[in-house]
């Protein structure tokens, strides 16, 4: 399944340049023709609908306001295979979970544009009386029907669709009244696909970003987001931020002005606060350098994205701490999980409970900040020393074009992603936790981190190997994948 839809008539040379209006118009026609519900998408009508929504149902406005007020908004994930189940879910998250942002997660067939299989999944779900799909088949239902979801809630709604093929889910989602869309060409293609070309992934998101800009030209601000959590598996802040900078430059190039940055939590209070601070500053630094002075880039902190403990009581601590880390770290919103995480997609009840636990944790965090803590300042500076050399190198490789540089950097391993399923990614870079619980880089692969930086990482990881009495090597990385899913008898044995 490749993303280079031959149907696409106007395949322009690959670059970071803004897609021009005529080309984009015919790209849209071709795209919308790919599935019947595409015909329901009418830009003018959609724009009018968005303008009819109250400001508090627009995610771009909600994020800007939360940022101004120093609040941390809550948002879960959630998708089921039928409209009825999805309506019930989104209502429960809004009312019982007090979610500030309500999600609609698409199913994995829809993500991969296997719409017939998604249709079958709807039928199976209706037959079984429970969801057989892991998300909502947005394209099958189409924008008119999906609008019922927007009417059912009193919050902004966001499309969550981990995919390299967002063009139709994007068109349908925006037309339905969703005001946010999570996803980016570099991050998702390297983390959610196997054979899909990174170039095509970037092209597809250039389409979505250009579409977002089109709405903006018509006076409708929509919130785009970069999934810097990548494979969710011990991603060190620096690697997440490198991809955030690149995807942000690509989005800004298409005219996006509301671009959120999602960071998976490391679960270390200081490292997460440093990551949130560094992410926003570094992305702004490179946007401004590239001449994009007015892009709003709030950071969203994500509850632990790696393996969870198989005990609800233990998991409850990760849920609560997830709120604490986001709030103290100064994130503008937090994406929450539930005590069911290790087992399966949560029930609406468990999902809403996770939202409330997180919300209470945010309240308890009061206005505490770590800015004046020397350890926080050291870590923030360290992230800068890690990110800049990589990004500068990648921009160099592109001879001034960030899109081209990104592809070349992936080919050369200059840009590498831990635990990536994608064959164009070497995935030789390997992270592990150090003795103090910080995520560090065990093997840099071919990423050009400065020598002194790598020495810091190695020294800290060797300390851990000594403490645990294990050899210094790959086993540290594998043990770090399992770590948080271990039982308490293993993590903190009573004596």
């Amino acid at each position, binding site marked *: 399944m490749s993303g280079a839809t031959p149907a696409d008539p106007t395949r322009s040379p690959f670059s970071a340049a803004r897609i021009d209006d005529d080309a984009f118009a015919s790209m849209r026609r071709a795209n919308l023709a790919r599935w019947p519900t595409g015909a329901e998408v009418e830009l003018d009508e959609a724009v009018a609908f968005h303008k009819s929504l109250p400001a508090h149902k627009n995610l771009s406005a909600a994020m800007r306001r939360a940022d101004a007020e120093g609040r941390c908004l809550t948002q879960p994930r959630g998708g089921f295979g039928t409209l009825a189940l999805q309506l019930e879910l989104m209502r429960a998250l809004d009312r019982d979970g007090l979610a500030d942002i309500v999600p609609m997660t698409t199913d994995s*067939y829809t993500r991969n544009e296997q719409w017939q299989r998604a249709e079958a999944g709807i039928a199976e779900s209706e037959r079984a009386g429970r969801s057989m799909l892991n998300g909502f088949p947005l394209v099958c239902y189409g924008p008119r029907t999906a609008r019922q979801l927007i009417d059912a809630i009193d919050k902004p709604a966001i499309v969550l669709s981990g995919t390299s093929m967002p063009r139709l889910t994007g068109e349908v989602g925006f037309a339905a009244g969703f005001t946010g869309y999570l996803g980016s060409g570099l991050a998702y293609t390297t983390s959610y696909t196997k054979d899909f070309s990174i170039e095509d992934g970037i092209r597809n998101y250039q389409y979505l970003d250009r579409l977002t800009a089109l709405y903006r030209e018509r006076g409708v601000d929509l919130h785009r987001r970069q999934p810097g959590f990548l*494979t969710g598996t011990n991603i060190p802040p620096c690697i997440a931020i490198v991809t955030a900078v690149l995807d942000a430059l690509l989005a800004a190039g298409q005219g996006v002005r509301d671009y959120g940055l999602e960071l998976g939590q490391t679960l270390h209070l200081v490292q997460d606060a440093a990551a949130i601070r560094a992410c926003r500053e570094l992305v702004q630094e490179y946007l401004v350098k590239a001449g994009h002075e007015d892009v709003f880039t709030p950071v969203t902190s994500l509850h632990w994205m790696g393996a969870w403990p198989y005990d609800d009581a233990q998991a409850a601590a990760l849920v609560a701490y997830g709120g604490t880390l986001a709030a103290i770290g100064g994130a503008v919103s937090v994406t929450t999980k539930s005590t069911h995480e*290790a*087992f399966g997609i949560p029930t609406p009840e468990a999902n809403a409970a996770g939202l409330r636990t997180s919300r209470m944790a945010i309240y308890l965090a009061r206005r505490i900040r770590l800015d004046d803590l020397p350890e926080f300042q050291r870590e923030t500076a360290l992230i800068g020393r890690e990110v800049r050399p990589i990004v500068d190198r990648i921009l160099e490789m592109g001879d001034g074009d960030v899109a081209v540089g990104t592809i070349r950097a992936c080919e050369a391993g200059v840009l590498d992603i831990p635990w990536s*399923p994608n064959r164009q990614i070497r995935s030789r870079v390997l992270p592990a936790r150090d003795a103090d619980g910080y995520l560090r880089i065990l093997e840099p692969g071919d990423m050009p981190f400065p020598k002194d930086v790598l020495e810091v990482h190695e020294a800290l990881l060797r300390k851990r190997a000594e403490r645990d009495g294990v050899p210094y090597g790959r086993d540290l990385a594998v043990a770090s*994948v399992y770590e948080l899913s271990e039982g308490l008898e293993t993590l903190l044995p009573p004596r």
Partner: protein
Amino acid sequence: MSARATGPARGRKLVTGVIGADTHIVGNRILSMALEEAGFEVVSLGAITPAGDFVKAAIETAADAIMVSSLYGQGELDCPGFRDLCIEAGLENILIYVGGNLVVGKQDWRDVERRFLAMGFDRAFPPNTRTDEVIETLNADFAARSEGRRIAE
């Protein structure tokens, strides 16, 4: 990760992969690494692998077992008919395991296991299965097979 392939299991060929549109590669990769270290020969198909590709690879490599991962919840849509595919391809007796987060949501395991055994998998493994356990089970099952039984009790 200390368990080793023993007895009749030594050197057996295993096909691994993640079925359907499922991108969860981490557990599958760690499992494949562990199986290799343990002394199995592993043909690793990676993430997002159509059912047919497992069977094709099994035939081409004359594999002794197929290890299907499904994490993302749609295993109940991707896995039915898997055994039939094998049979049609002439792999009546190939050993088939399935493991991961097989269904949508936190469901009673015994019930889920029943469903997947009914689909024709020789064994189904719940979340939180560690690689050592998988290796021990493979040892036991290949031993059983060398005695003519389908799998160990």
